[in-house]
């Protein structure tokens, strides 16, 4: 009896060991160098939720050709140095063929040359900076470039009758890129920029910057800011009695910003790459998100992250699991693909070819679409 038990055990052991050798069942690893700690972890946690949702859906339907997707998350600590470390680790240790890159254009742009040199595909789901993908042909983004957003913001300002504005911006690749795109378009449209104020990220005190921007009581101030920085700034401006129409870009458009700034954020207006919410793709995504997480506050850029997983999985299906195969398959896989965020066709710069821009406003503590 003992012998029998032993031989059964041995057979069972071999059977167990034999299973993973069937390569088809091994998961396909995708790296994600995300901000899970540090100053923009606010974003990272939301992205992760949406990525996990997409992966769960794909795996539930049998994965890619029978193989499941597995995301290897690596904390990028929200700073360029650790972003590079995270991407290197994913390339050399986990040997992933494709990486979802860090948020924050400066962070992403620090890692792009590393991915390019190692011939690993790197994608961004929220990088808007002009020139984000210029490091080479392995670098893609599913989020539209600010080359497209700057003119929309200028049109908004002029359209609301603001012919003279000071411009504040967060001093990094994203802020600078959008500032330049805005200022060019605004001047061409006949506007005058009265002052340009760059400020650093991650500060707790922006009072004097705000004071300088408000000199001469301008009716509107353009502020290209983030969630935390924006929340602090609107609060401090409110406390100092600065009354103006804030005009922002896409990065401040987050429920978290409104939650942090409270009523100080009331009336803030901005542009953003709009995602038509009445499509069946968007409704399905929203319902799935609510089912998994219990609330329907879709995190900022969460929809783009969700689409990024689908675009990538389509490319893997088409081009195989090598980095080169995925790179070559991406344009064809995305062409005409209608995701949650619309048509994902790439242009020659490996950025989305199409983008619609909407206008958001904070009203009664909620972010809504602005109606003139």
């Amino acid at each position, binding site marked *: 009896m003992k012998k029998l038990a032993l031989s059964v055990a041995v057979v069972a052991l071999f059977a167990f060991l034999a299973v993973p050798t069937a390569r088809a069942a091994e998961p396909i690893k995708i790296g994600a160098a995300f901000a899970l700690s540090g100053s923009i972890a606010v974003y990272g*946690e939301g992205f992760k939720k949406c990525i996990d949702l997409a992966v769960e859906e794909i795996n539930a339907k049998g994965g890619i050709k029978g193989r499941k997707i597995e995301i290897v998350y690596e904390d990028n600590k929200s700073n360029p140095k650790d972003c590079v470390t995270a991407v290197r680790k994913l390339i050399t240790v986990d040997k992933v063929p494709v990486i979802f890159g860090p948020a924050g254009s400066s962070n992403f742009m620090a890692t792009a040359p590393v991915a390019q040199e190692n011939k690993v595909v790197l994608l961004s789901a929220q990088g808007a900076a002009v020139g984000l993908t210029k490091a080479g042909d392995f670098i893609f983004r599913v989020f539209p470039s600010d080359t497209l957003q700057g003119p929309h913001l200028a049109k908004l300002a002029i359209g609301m009758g603001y012919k003279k504005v000071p411009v504040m911006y967060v001093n990094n690749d994203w802020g600078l890129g959008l500032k330049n795109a805005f200022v060019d378009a605004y001047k061409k449209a006949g506007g005058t920029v009265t002052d340009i*104020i760059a400020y650093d990220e991650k500060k*707790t005190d922006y*009072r004097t910057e705000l*004071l300088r921007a408000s000199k001469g009581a301008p009716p509107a101030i353009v502020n290209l800011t983030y969630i935390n920085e924006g929340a602090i700034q609107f609060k401090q401006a409110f*406390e100092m009695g600065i009354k103006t129409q804030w005009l922002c870009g896409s990065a401040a458009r987050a429920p978290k910003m409104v939650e942090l700034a409270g009523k100080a954020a009331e009336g803030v207006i901005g542009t953003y790459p709009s995602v038509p919410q009445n499509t069946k793709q968007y409704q399905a995504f929203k319902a799935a998100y609510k089912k998994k997480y219990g609330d329907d506050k879709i995190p900022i850029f969460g929809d783009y992250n969700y689409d990024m997983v689908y675009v990538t999985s389509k490319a893997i299906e088409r081009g195989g699991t090598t980095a080169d195969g995925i790179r070559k398959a991406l344009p064809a896989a995305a062409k005409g693909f209608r995701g949650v965020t619309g048509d994902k066709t790439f242009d020659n710069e490996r950025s989305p070819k199409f983008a619609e821009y909407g206008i958001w406003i904070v009203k009664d503590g909620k972010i809504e679409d602005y109606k003139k």
Partner: protein
Amino acid sequence: MDSISYYLQTVLNGILAGCIYALFAMGLTLIYGVLNFVNFAHGELIMWGAYFLFLFMAEPFGLPLYLAVLPALVLTGGLGLVMDYSVFRPIRRANRLTLLIAAMGLSVFLRNAAQFFWGAEVRTYGFEVMPGTQFLGLYLTTPQFAIIGVTVLCVVGVYLLFFKSRLGKSMRALSDNLDLARISGIDTKRSILAAWVISAVLAGIGGILLALDTNLHPEMGIANLIKAFAATLIGGVGNLWGALLGGLLIGLAENIGVLFISPGYKDGIAFVIMVLILLARPYVILGERSD
């Protein structure tokens, strides 16, 4: 806003920033004076102080602000003692570099621990934002009144403690010469513990004020520590009044500077002043007392 109040508001902003820097710098310089090393984990006492208050104000405690402050500061003081007991006491006689590295390691550990408990996201105490009170054309909010008032109280308290009490005298003796103080029969252990508690409580008070005025964030300490460090250098390391003046000087200089040069260089201003003062008074960094 007319021109004079525009400049006055800037000066006021500088004083507010300066008060916060000064509270941090005083604690930092106190530990340096007594134990002769730069506690790079001081920033974490700032941050934990603010989060301890958050802890007592959130469920299950749900205490109002004025009741939550006391237990929060007690815990912050306790954290200072735990830091000393678990990390710094075993290596008391090690060289400065060892202490410095240990402090940096502790700083990372404490920051990650805070993130583990409260997450990396920005939080607030949940008070409704209020427009400031107008006062001679200047705007000042309640937390800002508190910043100035509490800083003055802390400075008076520290003055009384250091120059009027026995404990303060023994701490000053310790900071002048550890061995001599011990030979003279001063209870060095007790003085060191007192220094940790005072340093931690000052950090906690500063952290709470900063968080009331802005937000809570796991990196709020480390972000301000550098400025506090610059303030201590400007004031002469180990010199309490120097730390106070250094903090105010940096706060004023960087805020007034913003009016004239691009705010992108705001941090630069603090460090330019620091470098200039070090060039003019090199003995500051060599460890000789300037007082």
